């Protein structure tokens, strides 16, 4: 659920009612009707988003006895176990690596790319490239993951075949089968799949910049590279801020591609937080421990989102 969090929820939403209808009597009669419009959304969110979230906190201080069928309070034992679990730390490292590489490719790369595309002279090429870059984002991560499982496959995959073709035989390897390369191969696939989406968003942001600003810079003799840093970068700062948050938050929720390509292996080297949660919860029925991992994800993603809100609010005040 990547999602723009930019509009601070406290922005006064409801336009006040037109003066003619704000008399007390009318308002009193309207009240229950107003609730009726938002009730379905609130009920669904309350029951299936907020309630389980709270239950998760409760679960994380419990231990399940799957044989006796009961559960008991164990305090912070699950969290203590977490701190001493090397796979948890490995997963956290892998998520952080995901975040770092994605920031580089899907934020900074994706900002540079449309600027380069806009520099092309042929409008037909510009349009074609924009569409081509997006195609991997339209197909699912499952299809992309399965596809790259085969791309990396040592015998029939095109990556090793390509390396052999250009004489780099020494570099050929089982990309997903080794502890040292597995997570990086997954991360690389993820960039291939995701960069088009953020590139498209940045392209939209760049097209919103008034053309006169570029023209004025050109007239002043500012070259394309300085134009990028003096016009494009500052005027897309809002989008950049948003994409940093969305990318970071997404990086700590990775699941699909890891599950499809490696299931966290070999030897847990490519586990990420959600795959480890899944394994602990549904593989070992250790629900309390899985809930503790979920709480870590909750704290990380909420922290990132609140940071975003704080920054947006500050900026709004500045303006």
């Amino acid at each position, binding site marked *: 659920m990547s999602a723009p969090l930019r509009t601070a929820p406290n922005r006064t939403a409801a336009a006040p009612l037109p003066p003619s209808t704000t008399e007390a009597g009318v308002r009193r009669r309207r009240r229950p009707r107003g609730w009726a419009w938002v009730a379905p959304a609130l009920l669904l969110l309350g029951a299936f988003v907020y309630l389980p979230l709270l239950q998760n906190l409760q679960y994380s201080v419990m231990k399940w006895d799957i044989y006796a069928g009961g559960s008991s309070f164990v305090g912070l034992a699950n969290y203590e176990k977490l701190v001493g679990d090397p796979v948890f730390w490995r997963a956290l490292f892998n998520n952080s690596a995901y975040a770092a590489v994605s920031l580089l490719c899907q934020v900074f790369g994706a900002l540079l790319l449309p600027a380069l595309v806009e520099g092309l002279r042929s409008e037909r090429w510009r349009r074609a490239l924009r569409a081509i870059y997006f195609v991997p984002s339209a*197909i699912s991560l499952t299809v992309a993951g399965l596809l790259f499982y085969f791309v990396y496959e040592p015998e029939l995959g095109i990556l090793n075949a390509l390396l052999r073709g250009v004489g780099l035989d020494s570099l050929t390897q089982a990309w997903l089968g080794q502890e040292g390369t597995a997570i990086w191969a997954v991360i690389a696939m993820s960039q291939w799949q995701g960069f088009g989406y953020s590139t498209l968003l940045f392209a939209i942001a760049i097209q919103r910049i008034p053309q006169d600003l570029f023209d004025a810079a050109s007239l002043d003799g500012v070259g394309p590279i300085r134009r990028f840093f003096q016009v494009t970068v500052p005027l897309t700062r809002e989008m950049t801020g948003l994409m940093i948050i969305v990318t970071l938050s997404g990086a700590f929720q990775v699941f699909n591609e890891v599950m499809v390509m490696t299931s966290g292996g070999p030897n847990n080297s490519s586990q990420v*937080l959600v795959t480890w949660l899944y394994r602990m919860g549904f593989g070992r029925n250790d629900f309390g421990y899985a809930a503790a991992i979920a709480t870590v994800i909750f704290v990380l993603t909420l922290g990132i989102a609140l940071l975003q809100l704080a920054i947006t609010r500050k900026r709004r005040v500045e303006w």
Partner: protein
Amino acid sequence: MVSRTTVLGVVLRTFVASFLLALAVVVIYPLLWMVLNGFKTNSELFGNPFALPVQFTWENYAKAWNRGVSSYLMTSILVTVTSTIATVFISAWAAYGLTRMHIPFSRTVLALILGGLMLAPAVALIPLVKMFQALGLYNTFWALLILYVAFRIPFTTFLIRAYMVDLPLEIDEAAAVDGAGKARAFWSIVLPMCKPILVSSVILNVLFTWNEYLFAMVFTSGGDLQTLPIGLTNLMSKHGTEYPVVFAGMTIAAVPVILLFFLTQKYFVKGLADGVGK
């Protein structure tokens, strides 16, 4: 006269153009490889990976179709259509209530609905499984429908609300003068005026639901009901030795969304622009 800067400019331009072209090849070639592999035999697949199929027959595609892909496709279509419709309507109602009605604690309501944007679905996973088991909905179509709608309401409401806020209030007043109630005003005036953002919301929700993996895997993997992403991984583990059939299945799953993207590109880009870049 050719100055030094023009020569440099031409070199730079050529360099950039070749880089962009190379990137396009890196993007497109694996996809092309996937489609072509769906036409190969197993022994061709293990031969030269860059070779074209010897003959183009639909055999693997037919096999994939008959080994479950048709039913995964139907499930995906059913789940996608129902959850998209439900999400968009419930979100549009909420957006209307939030922008046009007097609701006590409306700021809190808004914060609660949009706050859902910040929450990672994985965090709710374990309690949700217990809840749906208790409700008897685990491994059913309803589990997916409910979860997709609940978790997509925040983003969809965010999009539609931002659009409705900008619609002038006078149009509602005009409707009120004509004697139309709030419900009439919503259905016959405000909703039709929101068409552009509704189209974008539908496309974004279709893309999300079609590709969703975590909930689909956890909540339906034990039953007969499987969406394409889950079905494909099953196809892989069940018929793992017949890779061309897997490639054919992947292609069948990928083509509808790629087509959807190209057919609706204009609305899609506009929707993203409205929703994210506003």
